[in-house]
């Protein structure tokens, strides 16, 4: 039986596979069903040779690497024990080939983008060639996971938003501690006068809105209902005669300030 040889070529890469048709499964005379060997010649590098296992290992490493590279998220493929591994190496790609023979150092090839693209195209041609009926186990391209894509954004840029958010939250918290809180407590009769004079005669204040001034209440005399009523009487005596609703609202506004000094009803 004549040994068959198929060649796949690109500018800097030539992949040759040799083998025989598997007659027992009814393959045609031009098909290769039994792979006896393959060789890969990369321009300017040592020619590589191997068996079926090595070809499968090369496919398992290079195809997913190209898949990640097309998404701009390259990463290492190939375990330390596997015969082939590929690493991103700056603008280049480092292809490591480990021999199965003991005490043999791994062969390292540095490929640029064009050489890698040539290699990928050669392997694509091999996989898609209908004459090769080897049932090679090649991973199908899949969309990447979100976590894999996150790595292409630099760490500084990824951390910028959460760090700025935490810093802003911390600053806001610190400022809120610096603002003095109004002391629970007293309400002076002077302020009560001020509030009653804010309400125009004949008009009613909005329900639920306190007309008391916002400035902190100075600790002073405790307010009792009798005093508030006295204030209202004093206003009446001045001849202004505020509307009953307004008077009530003013009193309510004064009463809404909680505090232990308010007399129990």
């Amino acid at each position, binding site marked *: 039986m004549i040994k068959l040889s198929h060649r796949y070529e690109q500018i800097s890469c030539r992949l040759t596979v040799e083998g025989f048709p598997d007659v027992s499964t009814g393959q045609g005379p031009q098909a290769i069903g039994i792979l006896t060997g393959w060789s890969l010649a990369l321009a300017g590098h040592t020619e590589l040779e191997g068996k079926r296992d090595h070809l499968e290992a090369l496919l398992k490493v290079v195809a997913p690497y190209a*898949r990640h590279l*097309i998404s701009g998220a390259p990463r290492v493929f190939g375990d330390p024990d596997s015969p082939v591994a590929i690493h991103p190496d700056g603008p280049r790609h480092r292809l490591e080939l480990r021999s199965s023979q003991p005490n043999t150092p791994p062969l390292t090839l540095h490929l640029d983008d*064009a050489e890698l*693209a040539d290699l990928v195209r050669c392997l694509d041609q091999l996989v898609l060639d209908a004459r090769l009926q080897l049932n090679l186990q090649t991973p*199908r*391209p899949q*969309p*990447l996971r979100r976590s894999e894509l996150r790595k*292409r954004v630099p760490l500084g840029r990824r951390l910028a938003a959460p760090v700025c958010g935490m810093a802003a939250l911390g600053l806001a918290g610190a400022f809120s501690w610096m603002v003095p809180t109004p002391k629970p407590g007293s309400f002076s009769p002077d302020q009560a006068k001020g509030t009653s004079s804010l309400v125009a005669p004949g008009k009613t204040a909005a329900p639920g809105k306190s007309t008391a001034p916002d400035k902190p209440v100075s600790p002073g005399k405790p307010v009792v209902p009798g005093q508030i009523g006295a204030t209202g009487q004093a206003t009446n005596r001045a001849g202004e005669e505020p509307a009953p609703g307004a008077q009530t609202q003013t009193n309510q506004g004064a009463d809404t300030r909680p505090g232990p000094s308010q007399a129990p009803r």
Partner: protein
Amino acid sequence: MPEVSTALDRPTPLPRRGLERLDLMLLCAEALDLNGGEAMVWMSEQLGYQSLFPNRVELWKRRCHNPLRRATRRGQLQVEDTDALIRILAAMAERLYPMLRQLLSAAEPESVSEQRWALFRGRLQELIEERLNLRRVGVRKLLDPLEGPQLCHQLILSLALSAGTGGVERLKASLLDPEP
């Protein structure tokens, strides 16, 4: 993730980012080939997509689903349309592969390589200014003198790796990537 493992098996529409990248890569092919628009129509006919894209206007209308376009079209692009555009792009990348390789090769003299990149970036910039919305951050990044060259390199590398029949699935899978 089961939904990821079967993403290519079922007809999945391209996400927004995928549409943007697909149209940008077609734009890169046009920047590399002065007659790229015509070549795209011719390639569509060669691949048997006359029913989908009977004329160049229909092709242009599909490409206008890119949100970065100056005159963008709303609505979801059909899976058949995106598949056809991906196949057209892969075929064009195969035709332009020698040029892509020249741009990517580190063996070329530095000055010659710089000139080629400058020519390509100049043409791409003209096309971007003509067709894309310059207020979008993604477009401004492409025109940025610092970030632009890196993005252009990534687009050219993606085109080279998606060239030919073998590149179709790789390109489609990359366009279906989720938002990072």
